[in-house]
């Protein structure tokens, strides 16, 4: 009951935020919400399935560049939808090829994806359009962006929650535990893996598309491997096997790095690195794991409904 009340209050605060906050704090909230959406959607695939994906930067970049290309020619939520479809389509192709790879091979392959996308785009732009980079003039207002990203973050959380309680979600956990056994048990592992991967990529593409108008000018450098790593770090920091974990991780990392950056102009990297090391050493199951350690909880996963 108290939990539900807190949740409702939190939602109201998030919806009212742009009204109360200064433009700077609204931007900070926007950036953190975008990270929440990325981390949650990364974790609902990579957490249970244990396929470490480093493709976040590729999907995010594809969505962002799509917004830059279509620019102001289409009305606002459409670029975001387009970004989602783009991410989804890329993930279907890549997933069909790469999800046969296990462990580090999959991670390395997905890491290469952002570079591949970047250089393909450069090749295309140089050869076909004769220019690289796009100016995004007349972007949607900051309120529009905030609520778009808030919706995406909310949707990602709801998706993650629904997935955990569904047969599909259990199948994914089964794959993570032992893929061959899961297959023997009659799970169509390829379909489950590729489907969930594509769903998570759709969120990443949408977030990229929604954030792009913030930067006025976009070039293929938007396919940034840093985004991929940061997402993994946020999810692992919070705890990748829960829904709350990635949220806590994204909020914590976003606030911590901002505060350190503002207070310690020269030493913030050191501070951030030390914080990460301490958290990882002291809390192997993430920040969210700390909460469940304090509050006895029978199992990290809910029991299946009969």
């Amino acid at each position, binding site marked *: 009951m108290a939990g539900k009340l807190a949740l409702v209050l939190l939602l109201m605060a998030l919806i009212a935020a742009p009204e109360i906050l200064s433009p*700077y704090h609204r*931007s900070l909230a926007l950036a953190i919400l975008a990270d929440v959406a990325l981390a949650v959607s990364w974790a609902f695939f990579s957490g249970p399935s244990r396929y470490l994906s480093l493709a976040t930067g590729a999907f995010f970049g594809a969505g962002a560049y799509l917004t830059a290309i279509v620019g102001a020619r289409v009305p606002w939520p459409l670029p975001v939808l387009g970004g989602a479809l783009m991410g989804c389509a890329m993930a279907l192709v890549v997933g069909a090829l790469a999800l046969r790879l296990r462990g580090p091979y999959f991670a390395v392959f997905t890491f290469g994806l952002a570079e591949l996308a970047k250089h393909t785009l450069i090749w295309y732009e140089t050869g076909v359009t004769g220019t690289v980079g796009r100016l995004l003039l007349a972007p949607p207002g900051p309120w529009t962006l905030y609520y778009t990203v808030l919706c995406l973050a909310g949707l990602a959380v709801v998706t993650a929650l629904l997935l955990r309680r569904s047969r599909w979600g259990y199948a994914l956990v089964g794959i993570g535990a032992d893929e061959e056994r899961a297959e023997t048990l009659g799970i169509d592992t390829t379909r489950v893996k590729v489907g969930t991967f594509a769903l998570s990529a759709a969120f990443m593409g949408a977030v990229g598309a929604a954030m792009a108008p913030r930067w006025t000018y976009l*070039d*293929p450098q938007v396919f940034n491997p840093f985004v991929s790593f940061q997402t993994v770090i946020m999810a692992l920091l919070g705890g990748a096997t829960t829904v709350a974990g990635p949220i806590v991780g994204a909020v914590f990392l976003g606030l911590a790095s901002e505060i350190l*950056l503002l207070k310690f102009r*020269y030493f913030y990297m050191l501070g951030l690195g030390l914080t990460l090391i301490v958290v990882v050493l002291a809390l192997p199951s993430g920040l969210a794991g700390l909460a469940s350690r304090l509050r006895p909880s029978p199992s990290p996963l809910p029991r299946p409904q009969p």
Partner: protein
Amino acid sequence: MSMKRREFLKTTAGAAAALGTLRGRAWGQAKPVRIGYTLSATGPYSVGAGITQGPNYTLWQAQANAKGGLLVKGQGRRPIEFISIDDRSEHETAVRFYEKLATDDRVDLMLPPWGTAMNFAVAPVANKYGYPLLGPTAVSNKIKDLQLPYFYALLQQPDQIMGAFAGILKELKAQGKISKIAIAYVNDLFGIELNASAATALKEAGLEAVDVKSYPLGVKDLSPVLKGFKAAGVDAFVGLTYPPDNILATSQAKEVDWNPPVWLAAVGTAFPFYRDRFKGAEGVMGIAGWNPKVKSAGAKEYFDAHVKKHQKEPDRWASAFAYASLQILERCVAEVGLDRPKIKAMVDSTEFQTVAGPIRFVKGSNVSTPGMVGQWQKGEFEIVWPKGLATGTPVVPKPAWA
């Protein structure tokens, strides 16, 4: 560190204030003029930011504060306080911090970050809150598409730069010193725009490149391109480069034993460390705009002050323009105060005399500085084109690599 720095500033300001009181004026109350900016201290933009912009910002601040501060119309001198962070070479971080500067810190003035993309990212924020932003490191033909009245670009743009390249190549060809031109360009916005401008400029000059090759940002080997040019008998190499690939191409030209009579490259050539790295780099040409011998008032004093404060020379292209942007702000504040629309009006309507020569803006672009070509000659990057601004005459063919 940041605390110590602030303390130090306070002490300096305090000392300056005390000095002022001794002179019989009430400096003690002077509130600092707060100026905000981000510069990349980490990430890919940090090298350029640390060479071209950072040292000039701190030099200007130290010089002004040594005089008791920035002269503000009607308020006397007020010390300069910088509010800045490392933007990590991330556009999102920079945009957010400029929003913070405008709405939370409510700074008096803003200075730009380093690089074209960064300037593009923060310019709409500065424009929205009415802060004139004078960018010394934004180079793109797209600047005029931005249509942001508060954004100004000081540096020569691709059309002007390539116009100068074509000008000198045309003359050298007429003198029979070169016959075959080849271009290698980095395929990001900067290189692609320069290359497009090169095609137009060469055509207008009645010239044609025998070969044009592109390569990706972060390239690790350019020797195949260089060997190809060498085999084709190219005698004028034009590299539309960033500093890392410029250095790479120069080292590899020596390795593949190719010494064309003209070696002309874009960004990086004008850095003193390029000269030092290649033992004088005698005869190497590049984009130019400034050296301590130019006739602009204060050029030599600026050079000496930069060397004295930072124990290193300013680069011979954009550094002086970074300093000039601060001179422009300083003069505006002295004449109209910190009222930003008035500053903007003055920037729009005045021709400023700076260490980098006269600067006047039309629709946000500096129209007073033409494209220039420089050449390292006995330790100085002499301006060799256009002739009206030249501090030296071109030496072609260039001597062998040292």
